[in-house]
């Protein structure tokens, strides 16, 4: 069953187009990702799906309802974990969940029971009665995720769920999200972390400049837009450029960065042997598997977008 259906979806603000005609279908039980650099239109898309931002143009149906008309009814069945936490810092951890549950019309008693379950799920039971203010970033994020689950939503929207967290905190969040996915909850997330997308998403779209530039599972995207392996060569020289000419024909594609050269190849060891045959002696050689990051940078470019 299609839970989110978008065709030619557009969001325009005064003077610029944030989302420029995208088509998306998200099925029940899927973990779906929006990937893209800053300003690609991911958050605008999420806000439209979250029914807090009316689409400028195009078709958008969520849970087979129209967000323009049925906003509250749709939001009643969504869980939203926003990019910036908006917890009440003055309230306790538990009160943040119980007061939020009330917004969904959940009876107080049920809200309390559910808050306890969710605090256990996000491993915050010990902090249930402490204020939110002194919690670490990772704990606040987990509490925000717990709050998004308080109405037992059918779709959970996560806008950059682990941005700004330290590695331990990120892994804990991933692990909890993975558990949710196993329970059959539909996850829709945005991220610019490739490892996050590879870990969590069944299917994803890469967005750039408000458009979808690629779509597929992490594996098919790597197969389609990159090679099986990547060789990274560093030369001790002012410029890597001069060596690029001597590497033509090695691998399928070559990319020159300020500090190294990337060779996109099917077999890394063969490529390294070829480099040695050409009597080139790089200061360092690294053979690695191609990742979603390579796909992403290939599709959206390396220029920094702020």
């Amino acid at each position, binding site marked *: 069953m299609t839970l989110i259906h978008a065709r030619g979806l557009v969001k325009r603000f005064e003077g610029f187009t944030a989302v420029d005609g995208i088509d998306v279908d998200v099925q029940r039980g899927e973990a779906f990702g929006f990937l893209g650099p800053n300003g690609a239109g991911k958050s605008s898309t999420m806000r439209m799906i979250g029914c807090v931002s009316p689409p400028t143009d195009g078709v958008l149906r969520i849970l087979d309802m129209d967000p323009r008309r049925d906003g509250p009814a749709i939001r009643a069945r969504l869980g939203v974990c926003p990019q910036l936490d*908006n917890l009440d*810092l003055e309230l306790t951890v538990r009160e943040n969940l119980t007061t939020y549950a*009330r*917004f969904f019309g959940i009876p107080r008693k049920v809200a309390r029971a559910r808050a306890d379950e969710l605090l256990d799920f996000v491993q915050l039971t010990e902090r249930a009665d402490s204020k939110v203010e002194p919690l670490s970033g990772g704990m606040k994020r987990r509490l925000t995720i717990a709050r998004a689950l308080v109405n037992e939503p059918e779709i959970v929207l996560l806008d950059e769920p682990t941005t700004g967290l330290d590695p331990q905190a990120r892994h804990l969040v991933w692990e909890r999200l993975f558990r949710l996915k196993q329970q059959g909850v539909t996850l829709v997330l945005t991220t610019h972390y490739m490892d996050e997308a590879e870990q969590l998403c069944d299917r994803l779209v890469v967005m750039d400049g408000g458009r979808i530039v690629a779509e597929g599972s992490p594996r098919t995207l790597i197969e389609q837009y990159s090679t099986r392996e990547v060789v990274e060569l560093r030369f001790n020289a002012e410029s890597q450029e001069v060596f690029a000419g001597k590497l033509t024909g090695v691998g399928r594609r070559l990319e020159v960065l300020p500090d190294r050269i990337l060779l996109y190849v099917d077999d890394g060891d063969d490529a390294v042997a070829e480099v040695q045959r050409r009597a080139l002696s790089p200061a360092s050689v690294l053979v690695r598997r191609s990742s979603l990051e390579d796909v992403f940078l290939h599709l959206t470019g390396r220029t920094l977008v702020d």
Partner: protein
Amino acid sequence: MTRYVLEYHLVSYRRIWRSSVLSSFVLPLLTMLGFGVGVGAYVTGGVEGVPYLDWMVPGLIASTAMQVAIGDSSWPVLGGFEWQRIYFGQAAAPLRVADILDGHLAFVVFRTLTSCAAFLLIATAFGTMHSWWALATLPIAALVGLAVATPTFAYAASVRVDSYLAVLFRLGVIPMSLFSGVFFPVESLPGVLRWIAYALPLWHGVDLSRAATLGTAPDWSPVGHVLYLSLWAGAGWLLAHRAFRRRLVV
């Protein structure tokens, strides 16, 4: 849905209600002693035939309504958008913009009413109430509260930094408390200032409150006062709703 939002604000208030209740009583007590007994001793002839303290207290109740209402609609509203961002969390739930706005306004009215009730209690203990109509100061306070809270909500939702709120207090709240007939009759003001006092909401509440506690007729028709204050509240609500919508639905 509005009541769930009110409930949230009450839960949030529970953390500070003790200190807040204390200050609700201390402030009127100090004013009674300082202004009424102290200044009143100099105004030996009284005002309009009653002792100065009795004349001034109903004005102070209305003025307290105004100050509490504006205080609770300025920083908390700005913070709801800019600091803790709680409104955005509420907007993601199945609440409408009007629920979010009305729930918070209901809480401001609750705060206004409890503060004014404390004042009324103290003032009664000082023997300044001349009529059972004095109880009408509470609904009047609620109306004054709404008349000033709604435009303040609109303003606080439209600015991004709190230095604008300080401007509101310096140019709005303080002059309004000084020139709205709380401490002296507006008739003593020169022409232009008097008309400003008539245009602002507080004087209408002061005139009504005074009539209520002294058991006399107000200077203006009571219906006119109520309608004028309702106009402020209604227009303010529309502006606040528009400002909230602009921030929450983009």
